[in-house]
């Protein structure tokens, strides 16, 4: 079977799964729905392997194929086919997405089992995977936009999954609207591409672009900047990131799958996919790289002070995506994609472990209240530490190899790009500190009430769940883990998923040891063929010096975290008072929400209200009254004539005839 046939099957299974579960929500028992959902994604993964094998069986030069089912909307010179594009990059993404998704489905099978909305959850989740696969397999910019918007919708649906929570519905709305802004960027970019190149098709566009544009021509820069709007909105880069922390309102598997492992990395994929365009617009690429860098640092500072477990991990996600965006923008394409993969492993794992702890805490996410889970939940703790080690880039773990590869590339590119290496290491230090801050505050220490109960009885009797944000009682009818919510560790599917990911997080990096195996680079290289940037390769020396520095920084960061949170726990409080303004800034998330509220939301609402109160009433209705007055006035004139006196009718008649007679007399003479 050809690679494209496999790719179509990759798309087919999740879609079928979603439809079957969605339509059969009354008929299918809950367990069956979970199995159908998980198996369909597993099949997609298997088909992804099929595509991989069939690609590997070909000549590296020929590893790109386009295939189309039917003309989707092709008239008037626009060529929009329902087509896919299969090359090593898309297959790589397919494997990461479907692989991690399979594990997360498995995890959800256990995690969501006491939730009333089980069918809905799996239907949405399958739909999400379908959309994400559509996004990475799309063969033209229109279908890309479709996939792009579909994942945005799936993300909306899953964020507001517990839809009786006002906080959740509001967060969903926010995510959706910001994502639509991103979609618009993408659509405008597509228009501009069509205007300049006369096609939406990847193959045609990438072929014609180098011939059409000169480097840094305004149009190509504009195209790339518009693409970046899309990428930034989806990948939660500054300043379009505010939806991501709020998105943590969704169930934890959702945070793990969508808001850590897959969807938020779509921006990285987009830049890698359109690298041909970005290389023609170095200015835009630099904008992207600096935004990535800024996000990396800003998000890391926020992650340092957050007390909400899931939000802290969410900021860490932002920060890590900053690395990836930076990587693919400066030309470290394979390294960026490699980091995307390892990040998917360890961040999904971290969220799963966090979900397990949060479930034990009866949905309380405040790390100030946590402690002692190391003893209470041994399996979860071990996986949590594995994830944190990889995130902190502890030597030998997956994050260690992938992060340093990006930084080494920046060093090899030299010049201005050394900034990225240096500040990247600053970010790495913060990463190590915040990841172990979470570990040290949650796992060791004196067990909190829930952990104590777990140790003693092996079970937590939950109270009726409450929304931590507002304190109101949760509506468990609609689908919310009720009071008999299972402790994560006791569910075998969840253990399997977490175990597999823990192993991958630890050893996943071994496939890409510089100078030893280089599997990822070797596989992806045909995609960047002909790119001058991809040809830059850090020397082995640079690689290993980088790895050395990275490892040292990771150890240093972990050490700092140990001192701050274990050895001298009074220190963080002192630091907080000493650096009060800075802490306030970080804890208030740099006031981005407030700024957007002030600059965008309020003016829009004010305009709406003005339109409603003043404009509609005065101008539009004024127009009506004006028209009405005219008609009424004219009517008055006519009415005055109809006075009922026979004589005046006669007079009018005679006058009229006299007038006519006069007219004929005058005109005939």
């Amino acid at each position: 079977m050809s690679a494209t046939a496999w790719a179509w099957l990759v798309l087919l299974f999740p879609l079928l799964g979603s439809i079957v579960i969605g339509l059969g929500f009354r008929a299918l028992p809950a367990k069956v729905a979970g199995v159908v959902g998980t198996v369909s994604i597993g099949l997609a993964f298997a088909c992804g392997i099929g595509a991989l094998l069939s690609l590997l069986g070909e000549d590296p030069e020929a590893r790109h194929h386009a295939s189309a089912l039917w003309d989707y909307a092709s008239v008037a010179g626009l060529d929009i086919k329902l087509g896919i594009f299969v090359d090593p990059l898309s297959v790589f993404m397919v494997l990461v997405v479907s692989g991690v998704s399979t594990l997360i489905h498995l995890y959800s099978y256990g995690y969501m089992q006491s939730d009333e909305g089980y069918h809905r959850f799996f239907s949405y989740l399958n739909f999400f995977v379908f959309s994400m696969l559509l996004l990475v397999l799309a063969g033209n910019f229109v279908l890309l936009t479709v996939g792009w918007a579909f994942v945005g919708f799936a993300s909306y649906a899953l964020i507001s999954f517990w839809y009786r929570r006002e906080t959740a519905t509001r967060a969903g709305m926010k995510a959706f609207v910001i994502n639509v802004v991103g979609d618009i960027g993408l659509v405008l970019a597509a228009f501009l591409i069509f205007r300049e190149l006369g096609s939406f098709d990847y193959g045609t566009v990438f072929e014609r672009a180098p011939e059409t544009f000169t480097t840094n021509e305004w149009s190509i820069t504009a195209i790339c900047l518009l693409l970046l709007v899309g990428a930034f909105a989806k990948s939660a880069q500054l300043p379009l990131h505010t939806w991501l922390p709020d998105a943590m309102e969704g169930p934890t598997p959702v945070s793990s799958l969508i808001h850590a492992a897959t969807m938020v990395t779509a921006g990285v994929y987009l830049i890698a996919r359109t690298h041909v365009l970005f290389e023609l617009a170095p200015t835009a690429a630099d904008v992207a790289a600096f935004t990535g860098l800024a996000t990396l640092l800003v998000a890391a500072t926020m992650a340092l002070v957050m007390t909400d477990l899931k939000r802290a991990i969410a900021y860490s996600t932002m920060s890590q995506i900053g690395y990836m965006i930076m990587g693919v923008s400066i030309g470290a394409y394979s390294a960026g994609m490699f980091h995307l993969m390892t990040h998917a492993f360890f961040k999904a794992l971290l969220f799963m472990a966090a979900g397990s702890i949060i479930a034990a805490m009866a949905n309380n996410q405040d790390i100030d209240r946590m402690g002692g889970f190391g003893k209470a939940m041994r399996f979860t703790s071990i996986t949590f530490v594995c994830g944190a080690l990889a995130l902190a880039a502890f030597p030998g773990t997956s994050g260690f190899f992938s992060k340093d590869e990006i930084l080494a590339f920046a060093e090899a590119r030299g010049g201005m790009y050394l900034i990225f290496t240096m500040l990247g290491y600053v970010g790495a230090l913060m990463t190590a500190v915040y990841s172990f801050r979470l570990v040290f505050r949650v796992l060791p220490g004196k067990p909190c009430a829930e952990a104590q109960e777990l140790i003693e009885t092996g079970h937590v009797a939950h109270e009726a769940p409450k929304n931590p944000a507002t304190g109101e009682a949760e509506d468990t009818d609609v689908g919310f883990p009720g009071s008999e919510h299972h402790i994560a560790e006791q569910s075998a599917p969840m253990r399997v998923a977490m175990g597999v990911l823990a192993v991958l997080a630890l050893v996943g990096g071994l496939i890409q040891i510089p100078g030893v195996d280089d599997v990822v680079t070797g596989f992806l290289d045909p995609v960047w063929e002909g790119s001058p940037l991809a040809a830059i390769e850090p020397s082995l020396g640079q690689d290993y010096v980088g790895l050395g520095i990275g490892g040292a920084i990771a150890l240093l960061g972990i050490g700092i975290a140990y001192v701050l949170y274990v050895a001298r726990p009074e220190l963080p409080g002192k630091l907080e008072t000493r650096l009060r303004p800075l802490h306030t800034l970080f804890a208030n998330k740099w006031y981005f929400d407030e700024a957007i509220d002030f600059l965008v939301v309020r003016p829009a609402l004010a305009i709406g209200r003005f339109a409603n109160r003043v404009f509609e009433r005065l101008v539009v209705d004024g127009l009506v009254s004006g028209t009405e007055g005219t008609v009424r006035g004219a009517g008055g004139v006519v009415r005055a004539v109809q006075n009922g006196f026979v004589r005046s009718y006669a007079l009018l008649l005679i006058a009229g005839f006299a007038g006519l007679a006069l007219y004929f007399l005058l005109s005939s003479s």
Partner: protein
Amino acid sequence: MNTEWFIVLSALLFATGAMGVLIRRSPMVILLCLELMLNAGNLALVAFSRMVGNGQGQVFAVIVMVIAACEVVVGLGLIVAIFRRRLPLNVDDLRELRG
């Protein structure tokens, strides 16, 4: 005799009739004045017919007379009806049709 004289007479008759319709209030008199106007028209028709030298105009005049007769029948009928109902015979008081 010159046709113009007939036309002048006809115009005078018509003007008299029109004046009567406009200023008198009794429906009876108004009806008479209307007859006057119609007959002014008839006079003109007959005069032109004589001038042209064929009878077509006179045919029209006969038709107008018939119509005038009908009109008088209806008009007088109305007046009698008004009188029977003891309403004032004054057209200014009969103005239900005002808008």
